[in-house]
């Protein structure tokens, strides 16, 4: 029992108060004097004297000038500057409130009406009561919070945001309150979960412990409060208006009890709670008073008990009737739950027609129906309910709602209640015996049920069974309950006693014959728990998977995390780690864990997957379909669809490349479609979508690779055409001379004889031979062909080197790894220095300057660019006087010339002659490609590595002033990437073999081109829309060319329009009609684009798009792609075409290409 401070006579008390006043006054400053007194006064005296201070208006007004402020400006009071112990701070706060007890009792009454109006969608009443609260009790954080929330309920998120913005912009509102409003408003954001909200809050909120906890309380959370910081939190409420001081003091008391449910907490709070409960008639205070032992005869609300009794005794119709009345009259969420459960048991639809359709309560009814019924959309419904609970955390019904949702995964009768459950049990509206399980403080649960039971005359079966379950004994009978409820209580009792196998036995029996859907899933969840506790892990996994496959929502309620940990522990301690791996349920459990709990154990999921295959002696998962004995259909479907995904398949040792992983997944997707069809089900469309995505990706990758491999190209057909009649005539003349000039035959014979006799030295002999007219003519013919082969601006090798390799490709490919790792920067202009590398400066120097560090990074940028410039500008070129380092050297020696002449000696056919020369030139090209590859792999790669080494050495020298660990890591990570890039470029220097492309839809070409451009412009967000004539197929041979046309078009967009704004939108259509193919490609321009300049550019493009100008531009790097497009259309696709560039009124840049479709489209 509570012991009050010993009474003293009134004279003594007066003298004591006079002395205290003197002490306070002596301080010179009354506020400081009171603060000193608060901290230093002896306990007994403090309790006797403090009420007298607060009874005196003069003191009260000094520390709390405006408890019910009529304006925003007056909402914050000066408070008392020193902080005492928690117990004393609580008593101080209670004493401050007591003079306003009448106001607080009025507030409690009006708040109930206010909450009721909100819940029932009565906007007018709610607004009216809000005004009444403001007029009677002034402004408060509580009222502002309520108004923000109700703005959302009545007018939606946008209006709420607007209202909150107005509040935050109102400078009359103290800044701390505007800050609080910003969080209250942010809390309502859609798709922001409770945990995410508080994670963000914890990362950004002020670190001051007392304030931090108070903000948590205001925002609806139960913070982890130490007594020392809790006293600060209580003290801070001194600053707030009356309503906040009361509301948040109550919440702090609830949080303290929830956080530290110990006898000491009760002891600390009992005196103050007794005082408060003696004057303020608030159900929340009554509950607290009962729990801390301050008021055994607390006034509790027993409205719900008859309803609960009817439900647990199986009188469902009666329960429905009673519950419905409570829902409609009081908005009781606990009654609503009973209503929904009873309706399900009785097979009656739970419609509450009395509720307005748009009321908050109606939304809660709808979502709670889904959650309790484990419907397919229960997961989303549970999230919404949690969010409603958080948003309206200042109401008592929200606490009841939060408890109901939390109980599904963490039943306080089975598990130790968590802090939030203990907190909400104290806050929840009404009284419910089940709250007793969350009142773990000092026998409070028992006191609570006893009091409820007493108030019901000891006749409540719910109270009796709850009392029995709180302290279960073996053989408890629960006779008053219906069979179903009795079995459940017996199972719960066994679980609480640790008799897990007994619980398993009872639950398994009821699970076999469940009475309704709710009983099935709730019973199954308990059965899973019992099996887990009993160590029957495989059986636990099986029931978890069975239920999860039937109702996904239950995945978040089952003990998946603990089961997975138990399985891992069992595999460690077992002689055979693969002991349970033969069961597909184990694999699926790991997958559920990965998807619903955390990806942290994904490697173990892959282990379970591999172990399962091993146990079945399967190499590939696709073999399971034909070896499925003992695997239920639903399990097989889940396993193939969800477990056998690329991230798991790539850990299968039998699959040795990304391609094999994709092929295996594709095979599984086909199997899945067949399995669904065989089961009479419609295969989900996602299966086909995924299959198509894989195949398209593969085609695009193959196409891109094939295009890379066909970059070295000489259009010998084009050269044959370009050689014209002159060469043909020369050939005829040469043939004539061959017949006439027998002496030359002798010379040839001499050469042949000497060559055979002297091998390599034949060159010396041959050089001394005089050239005849026939030989001179042959030399001229071969030289002409060679020159066209090497240098023709349209068909020749250098033109193709320019178009397919040098035209930015080498630069982008080699620079890309450095750019991705942020290791290189650009120059502002061609002649200027490199820009400062802000990325690494920020990370290594916190944005400070260090010239050695900056120079080292600039050196790397310079070295990379110089190397690329060198290799493209000097090395990867056809040799000439102006390109003396060009690796493609087509000089033909005299001996070789004679060799070719001899080879062509018996040939009469002109085309055969050309073929011999082309074959020779190709052979020579192939040898030179080896030289090009060598130049890249040995020269370029070495020099790029040297540049990286130089950077690393400089960074070493900069230590310890510069923390360059992460930069060194980036340097080391980039090395293999640089090698891969050089390897890729080197791989382009390969003679393209004969490649057959399948006929294709132009989207393949578009996507392949897009993939290539995206690789190079990986910082650019390219959004695309593509459409084409349905079932349009283009001939396979055109694929590389059409892809290159798209590459040039998209790259033009990326380079000229996108790179400056970071994103670009491209719309492309390809239509075939009337013997033509129309390609239409358009892209948006940035708002800052210079329209006049673009129009000029368009005029130039349209004017220049012709053979003469374009062919001259083809071999030059750095121009726009239009000459290349012209070349591809004219000489590669060999089609009639037109190209026009334009600008729309709404500033879209448009390219239209019209192509004669003959020979191109099927």
């Amino acid at each position: 029992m509570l012991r009050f401070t010993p009474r003293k006579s009134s004279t003594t008390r007066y003298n004591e108060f006079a002395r205290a006043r003197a002490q306070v006054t002596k301080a010179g400053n009354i506020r400081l004097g009171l603060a000193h007194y608060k901290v230093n006064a002896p306990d007994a005296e403090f309790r006797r004297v403090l009420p007298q201070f607060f009874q005196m208006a003069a003191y009260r007004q000094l520390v709390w000038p405006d408890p019910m402020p009529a304006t925003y400006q007056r909402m914050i009071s000066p408070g008392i500057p020193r902080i005492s112990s928690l117990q004393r701070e609580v008593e101080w706060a209670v004493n401050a409130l007591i003079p306003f007890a009448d106001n607080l009792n009025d507030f409690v009454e009006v708040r109930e009406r206010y909450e009721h109006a909100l819940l029932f969608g009565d906007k007018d009443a709610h607004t009216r009561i809000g005004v009444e609260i403001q007029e009677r009790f002034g402004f408060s954080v509580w009222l502002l919070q309520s108004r923000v929330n109700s703005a959302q309920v009545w007018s939606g998120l946008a209006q709420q945001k607007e209202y909150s913005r107005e509040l935050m912009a109102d400078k009359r509102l103290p800044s701390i309150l505007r800050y609080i409003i910003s969080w209250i408003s942010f809390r309502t954001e859609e798709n922001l979960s409770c945990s995410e909200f508080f994670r963000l809050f914890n990362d950004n909120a002020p670190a001051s412990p007392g304030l931090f906890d108070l903000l948590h309380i205001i925002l609806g959370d139960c913070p982890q409060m130490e007594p020392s910081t809790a006293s600060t939190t209580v003290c801070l409420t001194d600053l707030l208006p009356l309503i906040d001081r009361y509301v948040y003091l109550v919440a702090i008391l609830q949080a303290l009890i929830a956080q530290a449910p110990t006898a000491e907490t009760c002891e600390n709070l009992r005196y103050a709670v007794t005082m408060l409960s003696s004057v303020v008639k608030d159900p929340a205070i009554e509950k607290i008073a009962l729990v801390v032992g301050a008021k055994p005869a607390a006034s509790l609300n027993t409205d719900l008990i008859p309803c609960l009794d009817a439900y647990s005794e199986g009188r469902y119709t009666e329960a429905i009737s009673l519950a419905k009345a409570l829902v409609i009259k009081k908005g009781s969420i606990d009654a609503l739950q009973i209503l929904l459960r009873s309706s399900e048991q009785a097979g009656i639809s739970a419609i509450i027609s009395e509720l307005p359709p748009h009321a908050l309560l109606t939304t809660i009814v709808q979502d709670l129906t889904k959650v309790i019924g484990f419907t397919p959309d229960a997961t989303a419904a549970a999230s919404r309910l949690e969010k409603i609970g958080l948003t309206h955390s200042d109401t008592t019904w929200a606490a009841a709602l939060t408890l109901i949702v939390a109980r599904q995964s963490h039943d306080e009768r089975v598990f130790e209640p968590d802090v939030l459950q203990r907190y909400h049990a104290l806050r929840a509206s009404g009284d419910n015996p089940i709250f007793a399980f969350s009142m773990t403080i000092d026998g409070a649960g028992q006191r609570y049920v006893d009091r409820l039971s007493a108030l019901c005359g000891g006749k409540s079966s719910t109270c009796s069974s709850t009392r029995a379950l709180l302290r279960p004994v073996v053989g408890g009978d629960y006779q008053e309950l219906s069979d179903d409820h009795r079995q459940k209580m017996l199972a719960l009792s066994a679980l609480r006693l640790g008799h897990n196998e007994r619980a398993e036995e009872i639950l398994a029996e009821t699970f076999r014959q469940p009475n309704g859907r709710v009983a099935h899933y709730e019973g199954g969840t308990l059965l899973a728990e019992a099996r887990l506790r009993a160590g029957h892990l495989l059986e636990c996994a099986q029931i978890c998977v069975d239920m999860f496959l039937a109702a996904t929502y239950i995945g978040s309620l089952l003990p998946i995390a603990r089961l997975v940990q138990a399985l891992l522990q069992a595999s460690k301690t077992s002689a055979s780690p693969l002991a349970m791996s033969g069961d597909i349920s184990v694999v699926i459990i790991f997958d559920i864990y990965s998807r619903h709990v955390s990806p942290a154990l994904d490697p173990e999921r892959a282990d379970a997957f591999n172990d399962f295959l091993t146990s079945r002696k399967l190499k590939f998962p696709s073999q399971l379909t034909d070896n499925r004995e003992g695997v239920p259909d639903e399990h097989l479907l889940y396993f193939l669809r969800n477990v056998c995904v690329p991230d798991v398949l790539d850990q299968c040792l039998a699959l040795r490349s990304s391609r094999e992983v994709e092929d295996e997944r594709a095979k599984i997707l086909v199997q899945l479609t067949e399995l669904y069809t065989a089961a009479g089900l419609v295969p989900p469309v996602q299966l086909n979508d995924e299959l198509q995505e894989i195949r398209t990706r593969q085609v695009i990758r193959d196409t891109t690779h094939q295009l890379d491999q066909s970059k070295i190209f000489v259009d010998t057909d084009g050269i044959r055409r370009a050689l014209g009649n002159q060469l043909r005539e020369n050939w005829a003349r040469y043939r004539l001379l061959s017949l006439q000039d027998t002496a030359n035959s002798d010379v040839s014979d001499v050469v042949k004889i000497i060559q055979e006799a002297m091998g390599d030295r034949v060159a010396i002999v041959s050089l001394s031979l005089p050239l005849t007219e026939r030989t001179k003519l042959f030399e001229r013919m071969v030289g002409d062909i060679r020159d066209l082969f090497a240098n023709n601006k349209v068909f020749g090798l250098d033109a193709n080197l320019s178009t397919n390799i040098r035209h930015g490709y080498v630069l982008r490919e080699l620079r890309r790894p450095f750019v991705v790792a942020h290791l290189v920067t650009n120059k502002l202009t061609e002649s200027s220095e490199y820009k400062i590398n802000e990325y690494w400066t920020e990370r290594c120097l916190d944005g400070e300057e260090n010239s050695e560090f900056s120079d080292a990074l600039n050196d790397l940028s310079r070295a990379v660019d110089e190397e690329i410039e060198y290799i493209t500008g000097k090395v990867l070129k056809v040799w000439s006087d102006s390109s003396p380092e060009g690796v493609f050297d087509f000089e033909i020696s005299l001996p070789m010339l004679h060799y070719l002449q001899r080879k062509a000696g018996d040939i009469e056919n002109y085309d055969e002659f050309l073929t011999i020369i082309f074959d020779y030139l190709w052979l020579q090209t192939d040898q030179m490609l080896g030289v090009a590859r060598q130049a890249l792999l040995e020269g370029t790669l070495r020099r790029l590595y040297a540049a990286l080494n130089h950077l690393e050495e400089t960074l070493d020298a900069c230590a310890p002033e510069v923390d360059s660990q992460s930069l060194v890591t980036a340097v080391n990570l980039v090395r293999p990437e640089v090698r891969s890039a050089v390897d890729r470029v080197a791989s382009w220097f390969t003679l393209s073999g004969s490649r057959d492309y399948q006929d294709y839809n132009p989207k393949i070409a578009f996507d392949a081109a897009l993939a290539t451009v995206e690789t190079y412009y990986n910082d650019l967000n390219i959004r695309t829309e593509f459409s084409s004539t349905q079932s349009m197929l283009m001939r396979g041979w055109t694929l590389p060319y059409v892809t290159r046309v798209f590459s040039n078009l998209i790259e033009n967009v990326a380079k000229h329009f996108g790179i400056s704004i970071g994103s670009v939108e491209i719309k492309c259509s390809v239509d075939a009609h009337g013997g033509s193919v129309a390609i239409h490609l358009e892209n948006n321009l940035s708002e800052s684009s210079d329209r006049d300049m673009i129009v000029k550019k368009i005029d130039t493009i349209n004017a220049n798009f012709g053979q003469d100008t374009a062919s001259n531009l083809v071999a030059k790097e750095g121009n726009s792609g239009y000459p290349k497009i012209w070349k591809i259309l004219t000489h590669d696709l060999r089609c009639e075409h037109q190209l026009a560039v334009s600008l729309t009124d709404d500033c879209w840049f448009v390219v239209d290409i019209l192509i004669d479709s003959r020979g191109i489209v099927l």
Partner: protein
Amino acid sequence: MKILVAEDDEDKLGDIVGLINEHIPQAKIATAKSLQSGLTQALTAEHDLLLIDMTMPNFDRTVTDDGGRPHAFAGREILRQMLRRGVSTPAIIVTHFHRFGPEDDFTTLEQLKVELETRFANYIGTVQYRSNVDDWRDELLSVIIKVFGE
């Protein structure tokens, strides 16, 4: 003496193989360039010693295969799989890096060493490779000698 070197950086691989050839000419060296190929060889072929890079792609990189997803702790994963399957070949980690994993949640080399020592009995040690500094050569040789003796 059979040594498996699992390393995706061809230059580093070349340096390690060159070092072994120079000092342990009798050693037969097998190579792998990814987590999966390293793991396959570690589990299926008999080796006397494994030299494993910590950070590797899932598959061997080729011109047509980017190697799949990267694994910051590929070396640890190989050791973990060996442990699961009872393969106890001595293993040395040879890494370029000082820290591993995402920038906002990285594991330092020192932390990783402690973890490897605690979890894997066949873990011999870690050598930090530098392409432009030769310390690692002596260090690696001394760790190898620890396994095979002089």
